[in-house]
């Protein structure tokens, strides 16, 4: 869109170009009591964009459980805050930056991380960890496998083009994520990387940040105190990112999407590092009343939301805003999404204390306005009023839609659509090797080594070491004991496509299970809901179903949702991505020394398979949605594994109890790729150790594939010193979890699995490790 001066007369057509419908513009006129000028129209259009206003999701989000004993701050602020004991709180949130990461992968991912970090330190919390949940299109020719009902991938030539593009996007995103966290000085400790055809032209980049603060130091974004100065701090405002939230994040992609590159913001982690230190130092002066970062919708959103939450008005003068370019119009300044900027309200008369801190850090800090009564957001430019809008209606009285829901009409599947078997021993080993090399299963070391995973010297479990990322809290040290926080993000889009409600439950259950396997007690969650266009009834049905699934699972597992975001319009050329709710679960470990990792530790240790469930046998229908089925059989269908939340809860409680008693040497849940992959990963993480296990058909049913690669939840593998087996069994019994000794850790460094009396896998751990560890870099042909 051409940038405009304030003189342009606003018409319904211009409003439509801004993404506002006729009804929405009529509402604008009603609130103003007149026509909007172009700057005001710009302001309304970003504030009422799907991205900022949640107009399609609001009615559903209300159903999520958001309250709990530990919740200090639920959704609605910059980040959720939970009590972690001893006067400390944790602030955490996950957010998407999907569209920008497709258009410009490095900067899109870079500013995605920057944005979520700012949300955390805006609350007064120092960021201590980052996790990234990433989804890309296939990077190998055999990755284009989707359910029959999903709009099929085209021919191999098109796929080859897509593969090249997907690899380029992956590389840019990884570099972007790495660059920001590394330079800013916060460890990137976890996350996931998944591949599905639906993300080919619509990668998902969801970044989660965690911070900690003393409870009394938490800051909120409420402009209070008429006459208090409003201060702009940080980077100068430029023309980057204008309409990032409205035109980029709130519309689907078409063939012209590459032209949206100017809508992408540009990141500068160095400036953000200065901003972090300066903000935390300035907060210590006691002269700051409120603070809000300028992320989506920049100056517009920060002024409006601070005034609206504070029940006040705000007046700013754009001439005072530090600018990187000359000749910027009020429209451009208000809508710029230049990064690394903050708006704060200080106590009148104490401005200089605040300004001095920013000066020390070499940052711009300028009084640009003040808090007013009357509830108006008034924007002046060299004395002339260029926008005047009631703040509360602008922030809170935007359109809210109860969009139509429609379950997709799909042909009913029959047994013929499901996986049929017959692999023998040697073939199973071959399949197993192929599975270990599949991008979804293979080691992500090549990626995670590009992240600084250790800075701040708190990382107890770096990526892959434990089921969850674990960081200790030095500030909690008492008599030599420190607490630690564990975090895991999860979300299986394929399962959510097949059944959004059950798939969403799995996302919560797996994240919580991972946290528990590390020894921590899950206490709260954050969600990033990635979906297609809300204007499609099928997508809204998926969304509504997913919300119901999340609600049920979060309630059952005791993890209220404290924040997050919704990303709609993940569509390219008319086809929606799989519905992909990504859940981050936070857990607390009372004694950091009790962290549990996945590596087996000593030959002779007994391997137990724990199952919180009713030991229902796998079915062909469920198995058809597994990673094995996708990778080996080249098909996806059926249903996600049946969900038993009671079983998940029992297993979670059991894992926490086992860790608390230091009863286990290692723990690893059964998830993508099934039990065989779980066992292999526990060997790969160890040194010169193998395992030998014997499986039967009584738990999983026949054939052997179910036992080896079935992904039914509520299960974990633990290794236990022989002298502790009795103690472990006492705990599992008490928790109502079935435990069966399936084998032991061996010195000979072979991975050997027997099923119903015959050997189905027998391979040197080193051989398997080589395939698993180097698959990704070999695929991408990099050093």
């Amino acid at each position: 869109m051409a940038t405009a001066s304030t003189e342009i007369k606003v018409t319904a057509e211009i409003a439509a170009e801004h993404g506002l419908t006729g009804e929405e513009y009529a509402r604008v006129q009603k609130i103003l009591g007149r026509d909007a000028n172009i700057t005001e129209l710009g302001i309304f259009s970003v504030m009422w964009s799907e991205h900022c206003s949640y107009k399609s999701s609001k009615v559903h989000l209300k159903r999520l459980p958001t309250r709990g004993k530990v919740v200090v701050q639920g959704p609605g602020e910059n980040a959720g805050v939970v009590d972690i004991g001893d006067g400390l709180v944790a602030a955490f949130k996950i957010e998407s930056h999907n569209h920008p990461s497709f258009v410009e992968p490095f900067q899109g991912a870079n500013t995605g991380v920057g944005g979520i970090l700012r949300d955390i330190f805006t609350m007064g919390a120092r960021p201590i960890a980052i996790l990234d949940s990433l989804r890309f299109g296939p990077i190998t020719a055999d990755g284009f496998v989707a359910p029959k009902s999903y709009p099929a991938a085209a021919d191999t030539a098109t796929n080859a083009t897509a593969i090249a593009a997907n690899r380029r996007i992956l590389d840019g995103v990884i570099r972007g994520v790495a660059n920001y966290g590394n330079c800013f000085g916060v460890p990137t400790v976890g996350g996931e990387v998944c591949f599905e055809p639906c993300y080919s032209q619509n990668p998902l980049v969801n970044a989660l940040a965690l911070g900690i603060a003393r409870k009394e130091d938490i800051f909120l974004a409420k402009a209070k105190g008429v006459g208090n100065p409003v201060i702009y701090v940080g980077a100068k405002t430029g023309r980057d990112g204008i309409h990032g939230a409205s035109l980029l994040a709130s519309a689907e992609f078409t063939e012209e999407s590459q032209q949206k590159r100017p809508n992408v913001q540009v990141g500068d982690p160095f400036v953000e590092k200065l901003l972090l230190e300066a903000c935390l130092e300035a907060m210590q002066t006691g002269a700051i009343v409120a603070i809000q970062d300028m992320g989506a919708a920049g100056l517009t959103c920060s002024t409006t939301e601070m005034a609206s939450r504070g029940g006040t008005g705000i007046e700013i003068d754009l001439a005072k805003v530090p600018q990187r370019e000359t000749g910027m119009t009020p429209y451009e300044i208000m809508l710029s999404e230049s990064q690394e900027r903050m708006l704060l309200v200080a106590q009148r008369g104490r401005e200089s204390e605040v300004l001095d801190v920013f000066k020390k850090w070499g940052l711009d800090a300028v009084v640009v306005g003040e808090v007013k009564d009357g509830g108006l957001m008034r924007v002046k430019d060299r004395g002339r009023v260029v926008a005047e809008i009631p703040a509360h209606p602008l922030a809170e009285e935007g359109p809210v839609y109860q969009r139509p829901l429609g379950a997709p009409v799909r042909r009913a599947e029959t047994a013929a659509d499901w996986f049929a078997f017959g692999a023998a021993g040697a073939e199973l080993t071959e399949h197993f090797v192929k599975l270990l090399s599949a991008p979804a299963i293979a080691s992500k070391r090549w990626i995670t080594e590009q992240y600084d995973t250790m800075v701040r010297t708190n990382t107890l479990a770096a990526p892959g070491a434990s089921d969850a990322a674990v960081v200790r809290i030095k500030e909690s040290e008492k008599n030599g004991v420190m607490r630690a926080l564990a975090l895991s993000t999860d979300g299986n889009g394929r399962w959510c496509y097949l059944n959004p409600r059950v798939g969403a439950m799995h996302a919560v259950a797996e994240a919580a299970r991972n946290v528990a396997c590390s020894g921590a007690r899950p206490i709260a969650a954050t969600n990033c809901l990635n979906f297609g266009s809300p204007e499609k009834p099928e997508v809204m049905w998926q969304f509504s179903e997913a919300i119901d699934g999340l609600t049920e699972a979060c309630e059952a597992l005791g993890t209220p949702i404290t924040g997050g975001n919704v990303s709609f319009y993940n569509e390219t050329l008319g086809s929606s991505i799989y519905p992909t709710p990504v859940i981050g679960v936070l857990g607390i470990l009372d004694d950091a020394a009790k962290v549990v990792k996945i590596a087996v530790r000593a030959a002779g240790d007994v391997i137990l398979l724990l199952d919180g469930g009713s030991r229902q046998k796998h079915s062909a229908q469920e198995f058809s949605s597994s990673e094995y089925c996708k990778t080996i059989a080249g098909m996806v269908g059926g249903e996600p594994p049946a969900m038993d939340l009671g079983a998940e809860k029992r297993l979670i409680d059991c894992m926490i109890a086992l860790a608390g008693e230091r009863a286990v040497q290692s723990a690893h849940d059964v998830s993508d790729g099934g039990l065989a992959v779980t066992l292999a990963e526990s060997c790969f993480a160890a040194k010169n150790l193998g395992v030998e296990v014997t499986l039967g058909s009584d738990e999983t049913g026949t054939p052997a594939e179910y036992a080896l690669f079935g992904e039914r939840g509520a299960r974990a593998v633990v290794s236990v010193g022989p002298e502790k087996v009795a103690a472990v069994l006492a705990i599992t019994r008490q928790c109502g979890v079935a435990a069966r000794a399936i084998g032991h850790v061996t010195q000979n460094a072979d991975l050997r699995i027997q099923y119903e009396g015959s050997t189905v896998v027998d391979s040197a751990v080193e051989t398997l490790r080589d395939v698993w560890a180097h698959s990704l870099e070999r695929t991408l042909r990099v050093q």
Partner: protein
Amino acid sequence: MKFGVVVFPGSNCDHDAFHAVANVLRQPVEFLWHQSEGLAGCDALILPGGFAHGDYLRTGAIARFSPVMKSVAKFAEAGGPVLGICNGFQILLEAGLLPGAVMRNSGLRYICRYVHIRVEQTETPFTNAAHAGQILKIPIAHNDGCYTLDEEGLAELERNRQILFRYTTADGKNDAAGNPNGSLHNIAGVCNRQRNVAGLMPHPERAVESALDSADGLVILNSMVGALAGAAKA
């Protein structure tokens, strides 16, 4: 004896160095802001890792002009021990307090992982607690760690026994397999001729507690404490 940790805008391992000295070595320590010229009476200085000035222009290229660097140079000239870690090493190279330069890693990517380094010299304030040839497991985390130097300079370095650490494999071979970033002759850390200024790309301050996988970095930091105690007695 007091340690000083210099803080540049963009330093991000300053708190880690501080923690290692204060809570693990249990020695007095203070932050020194880059704008200040005074060194607050510190007996040893650490230039920590990070991205001083965003690594803009070139790593360490802007930081070397900070006012504090004049005092650091004077302190070094007077024989005071100065240790540069990662970005701190890069700054000391730019400031001319140590010989050589670092370039972009040979793989052209940032690398963060544990590596092994071999102690080549033990007669320095930074390695006196090690035994010759000791292998230390210490992490690296950098974009620009490929150490380089001209032939003549290298010969001089060898002659004066200024190469303190080389990258090796876990079993001590300093071959290509043990070299994470393409550094010349696997050089991971060097000192000046007077042996009181040293720098290395690996992060000893990240390896001081076994809960974080390795405590091998203590060898280097304890050497400094030992040297200072020795100097105080003498």
